Every structure is written in structure tokens, then in C-alpha cells.
């Protein structure tokens, strides 16, 4: 957890904490609490009612934007609702607290030969956060989103109702990707995926153009479980394409423990990353990386599941590489027919505006089944942009252009990453009356509107 929450449930100055977005582009002063029990949650709801304050769910604070921020709100972390609660060998399912991280779940699962079917690019999110944003990973085109594998969740509503709901319940569909605005998820039961080893076989290809990138993704025909392409900063679409499938167990295999052994170099490696914020060095680094990968290409290697799925977690505090200034990650999902043109244009927009993407990740998707769609039958490109001090206005202008190009390509936005989209642009990305349905569910599940966030205040998602 990223802050030391107060154990005393009173709205005093000493309970205040300054919380930051993961990208460091926004922050809020909040009354931060770590409730110990469901009774504490009910007490906090009462406190909010009496004081007229609203509650924001902080999770692990890994949202790049303002989804887990709320100025002067009560911020809740579920660190006391963590840990594995139960597991079922026959059903291959694990029940864990809403504050349990993906990393804890992975570590527990691997001991039993299981792995979560869907994981995000970081292992440090909480399971409640994974439900609230319905996270996805490199296998989205085949395995869908996190909630597609959830068997049930336990929720606490702001009216005090505590219940367990399954995916066939309409409420579940409102809470998944509900941005933490509907109810508090205190427990998650997920069906795990059996794995024969803790490793995956990874094939790497060097691709030189956007055309090659999309051609490769389209030609694979689901022959790999996970695919991802790391796009270089050159802007011509060159990059390293990775495709992975589960690997058979080898006699020498030792079950890895994940990204915890932060040695000196990895803890302070972000200083080296800072150097790469200059365009020149960034291009040279991309060049070197491509050359290195070229030597490795056409040979399949093995990587442990942590290293393949959570590459950046190995570099502790990598986000600090963007200081001074902050990190903006723009991620949109564009339907297949428009993806190549749109992403090529978006990349050019960034480069010509002086914000060359430091890292860009291309992934294949299938449509999300959430109340508000954010993935479609297409591709997503996540671009990491560094906004140095004094360039905030210029970044806003670029972001607006990127958002317009996404809308022109009939794409969707992933709000876990966002903090600059406008209300009007967001509304245009949601078809039909889906926003109306979302608001009706918000009214039903949290009629007093106690749960809120800066994201919601900015985009008026729940009205």
C-alpha cells in the first residue's frame, strides 16, 4: 500500500494523507483509513453521511490517473482485507480478500500449479481494484478480462448490505468495471488456470514496420496464448514482438518467487531510465535493444511467468524515472479495420508535439462485456509519455488530439490510465444509452452517492 492509513476513524487533520496518481500527474489530500472489518466499513459510511464527505476507494494506488483520488474525500485501503481466505482443489478456485494483490495470488497459486487466467502488466494491483477496472493482459484476445474468470465476489454496499454475488447476477455486471463507484469488494473468488510449469516459452520477432506488426498479430490465429509487441521510439512501427505459450516442466525448474528480490541495481535502475528521457539517448537505447533482440530472434527462449507478465515490476520505482514532471499513459482500443492508421497517426502526433513515447505496447483484444465498453475487437496501443514541468498545457493539447483521433477511429478509452480526457469526449465514446444504464445501477447500489472519485467528478460517469 502506498500510504500509512490512520487506524482511528475520525476526521481529524492527523488522518489526512496526500495521495498521488501512479503517473504522478495528479494528487489529492484525503482522510485515509484502513478499516479492519465490515463493521468498520459501516462506521465509515456513517462518518461520511454525518460529515457530508464522500469516499474514494484507493486500492493499491496503481491507477495512472485520478481513478483512486478524491480531493478532501475519505480514502479507503483494504490492506486489512488481504490474504488468501480459502481454496478449492476440485474447482481450482481461490478466494482472497479484496486487498490481496495479484502477486500474493500468483505466489499462492503457483504452489498448487495454478496461475490467474488474466493478469495485468503489474502484479501490485489489488483484486478489488482488478474487479473495479476489470483489468486485462497480454492474452485478452483469448482469455478475456479478469472478471470473465471470477466465480463470485463479496460486496459491502453503502446501505450496509453485505452479500455474495455471482457473474450471473445483474449487480455483478454493474460492479465489474464500475470504477469503484458501486460497492466495496471485500472478497474475490477466482477460477485459476492450471499450469504445467512456472515458465512460458517465448518467441521473439523483430518487426520493422506497422504493417508487419499488424500482419503478424493477424496471422497467428490464436496459436499463442499471449502476444504483445514492444514498439520502439522510432515511430516507424519497429519493435519486438513476443508470443508465449505455456512451457513444459523441466527437471531443473525451481518455482520462482516473483519480483521481490530487489537488488541494488534494480532498485536504483530508474536513475538510468531517467537518462533515457532525452530523445537522443532513447533512440540509441531502442536501437541497441533491437540489435540485441535481433540476435535472439527466431529462437524460442523460456521465461518465468513473473518475468514475462510483470516486466516492469522487476525495476523498483521505475515510475520515478519520469521525475521531474510526470507520466501520462494514453491507451485506447481501436477496432481492427482502423487500428493501423489510427495508431500510426497517434504516434506521429506525439513525436511532432515533442512527446516521443518512451515506451509503447501493442496488444490484441476481443470486445469487453462490461456495462461501459472499453475493449473491442481490435488492438490497443498504450503509450508512455513524459510531461516535463512547464509543458502541461502542451500535453493537454496533445491528449485532446489523441482522444479525437481515437473517437474518429471508433475506439474506446481505458479509464484506469486516464486523467486528461474531457467529459464530452468520454460521452462520445460510449454508444447508445449505456451511460444511462450505468447511472441507473449507481443509483440502485449507492443511492446516497457516497462512493466517488476525481475520475467520476471529471467525466460524470455516474452522473
Amino acid at each position: 500500500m502506498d500510504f500509512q492509513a490512520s487506524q482511528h476513524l475520525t476526521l481529524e487533520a492527523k488522518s489526512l494523507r496526500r495521495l498521488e496518481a501512479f503517473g504522478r500527474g495528479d494528487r489529492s489530500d484525503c482522510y485515509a483509513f484502513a478499516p479492519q472489518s465490515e463493521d468498520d466499513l459501516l462506521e465509515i459510511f456513517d462518518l461520511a453521511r454525518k460529515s457530508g464527505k464522500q469516499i474514494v476507494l484507493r486500492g493499491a494506488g496503481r491507477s495512472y490517473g485520478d481513478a483512486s483520488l478524491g480531493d478532501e474525500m475519505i480514502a479507503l485501503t483494504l490492506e486489512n482485507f488481504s490474504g488468501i481466505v480459502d481454496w478449492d482443489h476440485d474447482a481450482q478456485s481461490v478466494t482472497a480478500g479484496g486487498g490481496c494483490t495479484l502477486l500474493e495470488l500468483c505466489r499462492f497459486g503457483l504452489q498448487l500449479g495454478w496461475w490467474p487466467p488474466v493478469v495485468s502488466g503489474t502484479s501490485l494491483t489489488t483484486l478489488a481494484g482488478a474487479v473495479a477496472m476489470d483489468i486485462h493482459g497480454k492474452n485478452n484476445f483469448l482469455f478475456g478480462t479478469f472478471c470473465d474468470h471470477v466465480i463470485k465476489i463479496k460486496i459491502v454496499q453503502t446501505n450496509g448490505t453485505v452479500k455474495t454475488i455471482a457473474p450471473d447476477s445483474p449487480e455483478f455486471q454493474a460492479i465489474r468495471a464500475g470504477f469503484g463507484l458501486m460497492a466495496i469488494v471485500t472478497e474475490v473468488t477466482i477460477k485459476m488456470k492450471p499450469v504445467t510449469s512456472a515458465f512460458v516459452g517465448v518467441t521473439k520477432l523483430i518487426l520493422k514496420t506497422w504493417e508487419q506488426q499488424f500482419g503478424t498479430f493477424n496471422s497467428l490465429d490464436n496459436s499463442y496464448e499471449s502476444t504483445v509487441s514492444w514498439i520502439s521510439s522510432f515511430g516507424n512501427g519497429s519493435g519486438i514482438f513476443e508470443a508465449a505459450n505455456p512451457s513444459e516442466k523441466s527437471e531443473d525448474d525451481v518455482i520462482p518467487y516473483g519480483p521481490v528480490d530487489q537488488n541494488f541495481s534494480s532498485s536504483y535502475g530508474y536513475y538510468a531510465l531517467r537518462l533515457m528521457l532525452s530523445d537522443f539517448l532513447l533512440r540509441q537505447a531502442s536501437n541497441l535493444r533491437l540489435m540485441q533482440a535481433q540476435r535472439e530472434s527466431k529462437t524460442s527462449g523460456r521465461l518465468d511467468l513473473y518475468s514475462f507478465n510483470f516486466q516492469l515490476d522487476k525495476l523498483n520505482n521505475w515510475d520515478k524515472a519520469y521525475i521531474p514532471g510526470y507520466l501520462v499513459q494514453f491507451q485506447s482500443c481501436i477496432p481492427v479495420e482502423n487500428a493501423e492508421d489510427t495508431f500510426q497517426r497517434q504516434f506521429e502526433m506525439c513525436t511532432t508535439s515533442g512527446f516521443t513515447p518512451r515506451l509503447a505496447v501493442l496488444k490484441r483484444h476481443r470486445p469487453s462485456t462490461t456495462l461501459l465498453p472499453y475493449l473491442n475487437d481490435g488492438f490497443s496501443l498504450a503509450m508512455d509519455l513524459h510531461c516535463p514541468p512547464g509543458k502541461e498545457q502542451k500535453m493537454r493539447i496533445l491528449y485532446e488530439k489523441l482522444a479525437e483521433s481515437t473517437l474518429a477511429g471508433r475506439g474506446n478509452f481505458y479509464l484506469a490510465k486516464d486523467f486528461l480526457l474531457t467529459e464530452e469526449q468520454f460521452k462520445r465514446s460510449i454508444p447508445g444509452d449505456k451511460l444511462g444504464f450505468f447511472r441507473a445501477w449507481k443509483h440502485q447500489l449507492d443511492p446516497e452517492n457516497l462512493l466517488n472519485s476525481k475520475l467520476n467528478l471529471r467525466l460524470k460517469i455516474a452522473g
Partner: protein
Amino acid sequence: MTYPKVLVIGGTSGIGLELVKQLLLSGSKVAVIGRNESILNCLASEHQNEVFPFVRDVTDHDQIPDYLSRIAEQLGGLDLVIYSAGLLLDAEGQQFNFENDQKMIEVNYLAAVAWLNAVAERFQAVGHGTIVGIGSVAGDRGRRARPVYGSTKAALHTYLESLRNRLNRHGVKVVTIKPGPVDTPMTKGHAFKNKMPVEVAAKKILKLANRPGEHYLLLTHKIIFNAIKITPSWIFKHLNI
């Protein structure tokens, strides 16, 4: 915009009012505490959603933490708090007037402690924020004229220095500004020479707000008043200042 969310305590007159105007020009949202309701209303109607008026006598110490919390709620947080409430009531010649002295102690020092204690507690918890206190060159030495005004400012300087030393490790900046005579309603009718225009003073104060420490507004003031500070008492008592 350096300070998105600002509270000015004593912002309906003089330096405080000018600071409010300049902060608004820089794009800040400003909460203003003052007694002059008509000025507050005027500011609020001219700058809707940018000025948040709070009619209150700063010497009213009742429930200050809750009041501060309400202000922060309206602003959406707090980045900068300026204590600019001040009172200068002259005791002519060699006269003494305890009633006036008490009022000055209450506004210039006691109220500052009451409000800034609450602000300090908040800033210490969040590890962020800037406190600016408007002191005076009059607080540097015990002069013949205005003994209580000077001593309230001296007390304020020491209090702010303590806050600075205490809060620095929490990432909070505390700034003491020691203006010389500034052309404001407070100094009207007083025989000060070379009064600084209030617009100039406010501009300099906002520029210095980012630098923790004690600051004079002019280099000449810095030289002269530092010289006065080190002047031995046995000489100082003979000087006509």
C-alpha cells in the same frame, strides 16, 4: 499557476486584498477570511468559482480545525495559506493604551497562532504546503514607537521560525515576510516615509513564497535592518528610530 488552492486569512484589506487579486490573476482558487462582508461578496461575484468567501473575525478561535476543514473541502485541498491579518493602533507619544495593545496582540499574534497551528497540523499530515506569515521590520528591535505592535510581530517571527524548523522535515515550507512601510489603509495617517505601493509588495511576497526563511522586500531594507539588528542596545537606545 504555482498555488492552485490558497487561503488568505485577513484578505479584505491592504496587503491581503492585493494578494488575493494577484493570486486570482495567476489562476489560483482563493478562499478569503475577513470581516468586510461587502468586499468578500464583491470578490465572490466578480470571480465565481474562484473566490470562496468566509465572513469571520480572525480573533474568533472557536472550532478553527473544523472551519479549516470546511474551507479545504470547498477549495478541494490547500497548497498555500497566508496569514496577513494585522492591526496597527498607535499610542501617541509616550502614552500607553492597554485596550489597543490587547487588540493588537489578539489579531497580530494570538489569532495567527490559533489559525496557523491548525494549518500546520494539516500540512504536517499530508507532507505538503506553504505557510506565509506577514511580519514587519518593526519586529526586529524594541523601538520607542509602537512597543506592542513591534513585539507582536517579533513574537510572530519567532513562532514562524519554530514552525519552519518543525515542519521543514515534513516537506512544508514556512516563510516570514518582513515588509517595511507599505501604502495600505493600515498605514494611512501614519508618518511613514517611502511607503511601498501595495501592488509591488504583494508581487514580491508571492515571488518569495517559494523560499522558506525570513525575507525583507528590498535589498536596502535587508542591509539597513540587519545593521539595526546588530546595533548594541546601549547605542540603540539613543537613536531616534
